[in-house]
């Protein structure tokens, strides 16, 4: 599914630089940033502050995709995991720079900046985070 350029551009702070936000009422961290904290709700309105996440975390669960969407067909088989970030939020991303079968629950990972998709051969290239085994 192709995203319009503006739609991608709006998410650049999150996808390039891991910008989330924190609720100044309860200190919970959110990624992607939320308009309001689901725990504090109205108390958090206008009090959500931007914060940069480290991109470090560990694998909570994973799969290896063998039948991929059109834009990812050339990459199969590729692992996708849910990562528990050290700051608290969980996110979904690809695991790279390892054999697909090497991914394990509990594996420590760190983010790496990569190409995610491209609109055809000449279209816009969409970048974002993937994860690799932590050093």
């Amino acid at each position, binding site marked *: *599914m192709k*995203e319009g350029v503006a739609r991608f551009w709006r*998410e650049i702070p999150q996808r390039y630089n891991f910008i989330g936000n924190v609720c100044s009422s309860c200190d919970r961290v959110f990624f*992607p940033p939320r308009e309001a904290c689901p725990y504090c709700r109205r108390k958090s309105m206008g009090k959500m502050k931007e914060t940069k996440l480290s991109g470090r975390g560990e694998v*909570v*669960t*994973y*799969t*290896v*995709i*063998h*039948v*991929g*969407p*059109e*834009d*990812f067909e050339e*990459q199969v*088989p*590729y692992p*996708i*995991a*849910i*990562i528990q970030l050290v700051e608290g*939020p*969980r*996110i*979904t*991303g*690809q695991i790279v720079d390892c054999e697909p079968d090497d991914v394990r*629950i509990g594996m420590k990972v760190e983010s790496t900046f990569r190409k*995610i*998709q491209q609109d055809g051969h000449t279209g816009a290239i*969409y970048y*974002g985070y*993937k994860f690799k085994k932590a050093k």
Partner: protein
Amino acid sequence: MRDVAVIGVGLTKFGELWDRSFRQLIAEAGSKAILDAGIEGKDIDAMYIGSMSSGRFIDQEHVGALVAEVSGFSHLHIPATRVEGACASGGLAIREGYLSIASGMHDVVVIGGIEKMNDVGGTAATETLATAADQEWEAFFGATFPGIYAMIATRHMHEYGTTREELAQVAVKNHANGALNPYAQYQSPISLESVLKATMVAYPLGLMDCSPVSDGAASIVLCAVDKAKKFTDKLVRIVASGQASDTLALHARRDICTLDATVHASRMAYKQAKITPKDVDFAEVHDCFTIAEICAVEDLGFMEKGQGGKAVQQGITTLNGSLPVNTSGGLKAKGHPVGATGVAQVVEATLQLRGDAGKRQVADAKRGLTHNVGGSGATCVVHILEAM
């Protein structure tokens, strides 16, 4: 609140129906339900249509009015509303109809559920299904819909020791049931070995762990119990309707292995029906993937968390087990035309409670539960039905 009953049901065959259009399918299911109920067009107060993505599958939105038109009711100007909640669209349409009668606003409501998925190619169908997931934070990064359920399975195997054989056994059981259902997409039994050896789609889920891409439609007629006698005496009462929501993305939920929306929707329904899970005689659950049935029997309260795999291995959920699950063949074998699925589940429950389920009839079926999920668990609708 007024009591509401299902007074008519209709179903098309599910499958790759190359010679049938969206319009033909929904008209067939609807007219069967209307004839079964003994009502006429002039009796219908409203229609609710469940369809996940007619826009992407057949390039046609605005299908509420379209369904009224192809059913021959355009000149009656019946209020017709399309309801969407991904794969739970059909269940949501039933709930809207139920609420409209329970509230006293309507007496007779026709519900339709439809998806015509094979008019686009396999890749387009897969990508359309992925729109039920979080497009920005799951699908964008290459997560497919089977991949998201596969991540539930990997974690379930890790936490509870669930095995690929237990997952596969769900498919074997549901195909055995589908073999007894003349409307099912697949009507032949399969072996455990064939499931385990099938092409991998998203580890640990192979092709035979996944429900198929299907065309099909289902319809039911709902009526206020106190107005139903003039039409029919075949009443199946809806004693409870529960619904709940959760985050679109799997990663943002409280627990990877629990569909909290299922927990909440079912608890809401049990409370309304004043029953516990033990009082349910059979269930139609949302087995879009084999792992989904394992989670469903746990989250609906039939089994302890982590024991869903054992339920199928020990034969508890087979047709002659103590809690038959997916007697219709489920989404796995009956087929999964997404918008039709939630309605087809209530069709099966109604047939069982009337004693009209033929070779797959559950003995002494008095109370059934239907469980319809949207996405990987962001929407859940549960209905409980009783024989009258």
